[in-house]
């Protein structure tokens, strides 16, 4: 039983990461009806941004033998403020990257068929991967511990708790909890932006009819830039949290994760924000269960990815719009 609960926890924490990345996918799709395949690579750039920024902002993180930062880092080791600062800085860098990518690669093609843009997105993705290999090196790098990982003994806090995890034999790390909380926070923040702000209104308007939207005085270019900036910032947040949980980063880390997040977004109904979050969780838990218990029903643990994609196919067969997607009639 404890083993099962532990597997559920493992699954949810993996799923939270997928969910976080899927949010960016789904938002860009929701507004622009376009799958940004470079999303997973922006996520990778986010990790590397954190990798290079962390020693500059937080004391005591410079790798052995590496050059010391030119100034005294403003934050002490293991401070929450420092970690948040690295997170925000990486998000800003990736937001800028997202806006630049959109301006250079996608904007010139906006009037072309959607397929052209889709293929360009794949091109951008490959460009980022290989530029990354060239600039950052091929070998995996160690992501500095911007927050020290430790197992949480009592839940939810040391002082006020109703669960003693140690006694139960359950292992939960602070990073797993942080990933969970940040995913939920960003999920709600995103909903508020989309539903309750003027920019969000413009995004929804653009999504339903771009021409009418611009006729109403909305500057479509600004809205599209904002959407890409926001989506890429989400990818960066995912990149930092992912690297915090799995502190070995490499230029191709975004490929499979991006694909899984895409599956999560489609599973939840692409364009639907809570759907993406739920889809991510579902994929995470299913993968973990396949590894943990698959052998009892004759599925080897190495089929974890296969099962995730098989579920996608099944859901698309039964409910092509995904779990929460609204069916949409193609205009002729």
């Amino acid at each position: 039983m404890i083993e099962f609960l532990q597997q559920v926890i493992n699954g949810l924490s993996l799923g939270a990461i997928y969910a976080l990345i899927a949010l960016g996918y789904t938002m860009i799709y929701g507004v622009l009806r376009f799958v940004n395949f470079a999303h997973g690579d922006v996520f990778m750039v986010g990790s590397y941004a954190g990798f290079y920024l962390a020693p500059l902002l937080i004391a005591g993180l410079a790798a052995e033998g590496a050059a010391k930062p030119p100034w005294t880092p403003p934050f002490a080791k293991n401070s929450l403020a420092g970690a948040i600062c690295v997170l925000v800085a990486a998000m800003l860098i990736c937001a800028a990257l997202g806006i630049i990518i959109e301006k250079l690669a996608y904007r010139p093609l906006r009037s072309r068929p959607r397929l052209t843009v889709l293929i360009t997105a794949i091109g951008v993705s490959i460009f980022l991967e290989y530029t990354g290999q060239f600039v950052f090196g091929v070998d995996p790098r160690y992501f500095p511990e911007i927050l020290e990982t430790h197992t949480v003994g009592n839940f939810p806090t040391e002082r006020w708790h109703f669960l003693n995890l140690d006694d139960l034999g359950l292992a939960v790390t602070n990073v797993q909890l942080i990933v969970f909380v940040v995913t939920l926070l960003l999920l709600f923040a995103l909903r508020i932006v989309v539903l309750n702000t003027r920019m969000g209104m413009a995004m929804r308007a653009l999504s339903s009819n771009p021409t009418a939207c611009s006729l109403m005085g909305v500057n479509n270019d600004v809205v599209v830039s904002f959407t890409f900036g926001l989506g890429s910032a989400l990818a960066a947040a995912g990149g930092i949290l992912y690297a915090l949980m799995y502190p070995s980063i490499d230029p191709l880390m975004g490929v499979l994760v991006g694909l899984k997040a895409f599956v999560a977004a489609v599973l939840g109904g692409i364009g639907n924000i809570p759907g993406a979050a739920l889809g991510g969780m579902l994929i995470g838990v299913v993968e973990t269960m396949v590894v943990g218990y698959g052998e009892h029903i004759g599925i080897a643990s190495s089929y974890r990815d296969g099962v995730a994609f098989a579920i996608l196919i099944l859901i698309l067969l039964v409910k092509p719009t995904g779990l929460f997607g609204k069916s949409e009639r193609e205009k002729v």
Partner: protein
Amino acid sequence: MARNIITLIAATVCASLSTWNLMAQEELKVGEFASLTGGSASFGQSSHKGTALAIDEINNAGGLLGKKVKLITEDDQSQAGQPATIVRKLISGDKVVAVLGEVASSKSLEAAPICQQNKIPMISPASTNPKVTEVGDYVFRVCFIDPFQGTVMAKFAAGKGWKKVAVLTDVKQDYSVGLAQFFKEGVSKGGGEIVKEQSYSTGDKDFKAQLTSIKATKPEAIFVPGYYAEVALIARQARQLGIKAPLLGGDGWVGESLLPVGGAALDGCFFSCHFSADDEAPVVQDFVKKFRAKYNGTPDDMAALGYDSAMILADAIKRADGTDSAKLRDAIAATKDYPAVTGKITLNEQRNATKSAVILGIESGKFKFVESVAP
């Protein structure tokens, strides 16, 4: 007339002297192919340094058969297809008497058939895939093959009294699967028990599911015959889940990012390897000293194997007393108990080296020599 004769004699003597001179200066050419640039350059550079050091040493000691040895090194740029071209050039262009190379099994497998066809002996320093020497009777290696490490680690675990062991294999790597298979056989032979088998794929980052199911079986040790990138994360996550059992592995653990990523989680773990610069055997310390003097760095296992490949060849040329390819082949094949840097090497009937492996432990973020295990 007499004058003419004298001139003639003088001329003949001069001519024969100069031929003799030429003979003395004639070089014994040895070819080497290595990945000096590209993806596996760090391996290629290392093994090349070792080989070059050995050739220098041989020449300083007067060369072989009265001739200087010339090492002709070609870079295969870590690219598939290159080794075949290069080795053809070495054999038919440079007329080398033997070929040394390569670290990567896939590259050695390209060159081996060409050496075999031309009946030029080839010695690979570090290709551990069993298939390499199966190409033909002119292909040798000075390293042990994959299965051996599995057997060694099984013996080691038994020696430590770890009876209940779990295995976590990288199913995408033949290397990992091979080691795991021989480890499992070794454990059952030694009276131990495999309590759980789990697997992952190269590139995975999350191993908590596998580790949780392993944890439930309470193993005394976990065998993880993968590569360093994944092993470091596996160690971290195992400790996070509260698994205290030591992890065991093979030479795939050696990699730049293992210790930085794994950190304290790897303390108390063990892996098998070809060579350790901390080994106190005189032959090892002697090599380390020479290497430091020439390159100002500590040799790794690839350098040691590169060195051994050249030394084994030199030893065989001496015993064959010539470079006739068939005789040289037989001499290499007859190598027995050669005191190499990476252990006493005997080449068996499959032309693989039977020799000891070194077991390294990790203590407070540093590799530490534990013991050397004889085959």
